[in-house]
């Protein structure tokens, strides 16, 4: 209805200062909500990305979820036994290359074999317990970000020496190792080799950089004293988020334990959930406070217009029409505020994106921000709703005022 729009526009325009304050209130709330959401989700995504990239999405290992059935358990049914000597099982995934071929047939992603051994690295009389991972450099490039995380050297440098090793830069710094140095690596089984350091990598996660080293599969097999051993298949899914579902399929097919990165970091995922709740609460609180501001301003405007409402009603305007005028005013302020708030929020994000930031755990030099349309939509939607409500509630009250009460009071 044009008349309603006209009256609303005239009111809003004739109270320019108040209108602007209202718009600024909404805009500030929307802007900061957008910024907070962008910051929280951005930093989380950044962290997840680092986490996901530093690890294979799915790791198929020769562990089992259920301890293997022992022969004694097969033989006797209701007998209690003590001090049973458990059958030693040969480590490793059986027929790893057949399994890989089978997986590659259907899996949306790539598979690479590796050998995990626990070892002690020794250099200049100092020891460090580390995980030595035997990899196939050509395949490894496809399943992890290791190739891009190389600080010095490349993965192919592993072929350069007979026992070449690539260390995390944190470990190298701790032990004072430089490229070309020879280190002693002793596996938990007792085998020891001399290895030459040919490269350093930096994953950006301290625990990884200080405790992981890469060698060729063959070298790791020597360390484990078991030729042909493959005890982990590393899978990189095309879609990292589908890792959990894929892992259960892989597990069902191979019978080996397939751990998705989500499962491996269940604790972090839980922490993220808490973070999300906190984020929602913070953003919600900002929106709520902003909504109160909006409500306050718009309801003040409405209250000041009580006399106009009485006039319009005495002329024969219906209550519904009068209410609509004020809801519309609230919406106008709301829409203008939301639009301005979006720009404000975007600029805030841009500004924050310029801030340099140093953190001890990861090495983001800039604040990670996520530009997501849904942040804008949610912040805008809530603000708009609050503005409409702020127009509606006082207008409902004011519109039900009897014109006689106002007319009598004025004359």
């Amino acid at each position: 209805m044009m008349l309603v729009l006209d009256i609303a526009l005239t009111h809003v325009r004739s109270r320019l200062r108040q209108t602007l304050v209202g718009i600024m209130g909404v805009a500030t709330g929307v802007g900061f909500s957008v910024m907070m959401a962008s910051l929280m989700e951005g930093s989380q995504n950044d962290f997840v990305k680092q986490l996901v990239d530093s690890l294979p999405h799915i790791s198929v290992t020769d562990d089992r979820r259920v301890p293997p059935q022992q022969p004694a358990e097969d033989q006797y049914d209701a007998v209690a036994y003590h001090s049973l000597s458990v059958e030693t099982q040969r480590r490793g995934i059986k027929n790893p290359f057949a399994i890989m071929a089978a997986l590659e047939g259907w899996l949306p992603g790539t598979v690479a074999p590796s050998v995990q051994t626990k070892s002690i690295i020794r250099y200049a009389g100092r020891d460090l317990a580390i995980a030595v991972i035997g990899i196939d450099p050509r395949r490894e490039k496809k399943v992890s970000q290791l190739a891009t995380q190389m600080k010095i050297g490349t993965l192919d440098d592993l072929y350069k020496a007979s026992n070449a090793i690539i260390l995390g830069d944190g470990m190298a710094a701790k032990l004072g190792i430089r490229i070309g140095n020879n280190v002693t690596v002793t596996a938990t089984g007792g085998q020891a080799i001399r290895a030459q350091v040919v490269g350093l990598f930096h994953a950006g996660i301290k625990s990884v950089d200080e405790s992981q080293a890469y060698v060729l599969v063959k070298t790791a097999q020597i360390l484990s004293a078991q030729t042909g051993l493959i005890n982990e298949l590393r899978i990189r899914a095309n879609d990292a988020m589908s890792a959990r579902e894929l892992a259960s399929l892989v597990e069902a097919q191979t019978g080996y334990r397939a751990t998705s990165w989500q499962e491996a970091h269940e604790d972090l995922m839980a922490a993220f959930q808490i973070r999300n709740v906190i984020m929602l609460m913070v953003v919600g609180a900002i929106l709520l406070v902003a909504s109160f501001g909006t409500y306050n301003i718009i309801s003040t405007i409405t209250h000041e217009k009580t006399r106009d409402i009485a006039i319009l009603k005495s002329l024969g305007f219906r209550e519904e029409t009068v209410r609509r005028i004020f809801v519309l005013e609230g919406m106008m302020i709301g829409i203008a505020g939301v639009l301005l708030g979006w720009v404000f929020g975007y600029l805030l994000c841009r500004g924050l994106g310029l801030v340099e930031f140093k953190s001890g755990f990861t090495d983001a030099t800039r604040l990670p921000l996520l530009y997501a349309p849904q942040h804008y939509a949610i912040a805008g939607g809530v603000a708009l709703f609050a503005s409409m409500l702020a127009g509606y509630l006082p207008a409902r009250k004011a519109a039900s005022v009897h014109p006689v009460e106002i007319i009598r009071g004025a004359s």
Partner: protein
Amino acid sequence: MKGAPVLEARHASRILPGEVPVTLVNDISLTIHLGEFVSIVGPSGSGKSSLMYLLGLLDVPTSGDILVDGASTKGFNHDRLAALRLSHLGFVFQFHFLLPEFTARDNVLLPMRALGTLSDAEQKDRANELLAQVGLKDHAHKRPDQLSGGQRQRVAIARALANDPQVILADEPTGNLDTASSAQVLTMLRHLVDEHGKALVIVTHDMALAAQADRRVTLIDGQIVSDEAIVQEAGVAG
């Protein structure tokens, strides 16, 4: 001069509820005809304004009925009463009650736009015509605060006439005006009755003003104590 009955109160009472109920209007029956200029007079607190609010459908009688054009309004909700006010009644109050942010013409346009029977162009024409009638042709684009008290009241009259109502109800229309402006406003109101055959009800305590009417209804304590015709001498109203 006296035409068909257009507005009628039938045993209308208005009692304010409360611990001690206050009777504003007590069992009043009154018929207003087309072409009739009625003044309602009485001391303050006599219930004359309350009666006007009842007649103007701004207030609802506690008991009794108000008939517009012979039709009962008993049990009408706010919206139906508002619709009747919009099409059948015009109001002029002591205080002009114009919307302060709107120009004179926009104020006059308000009731027409709310009713919406005329096209936009017709509405504009009629608003200009009405403003010309009240002598404010050149002030159409001024806001109320740029007009004098008399001019504002004349804009209010133009607005009251916007939807061509049969009845004009005026509550102390000259109460805030100087003598010259009062005379002007009164002439205009008189003109409506004589030339356009409308019914005019004026509530006032100004006996001089009441004397201009064709009929004077006197209220005391919410009851009609006298209802007399006044014979106008030619030229007095002019």
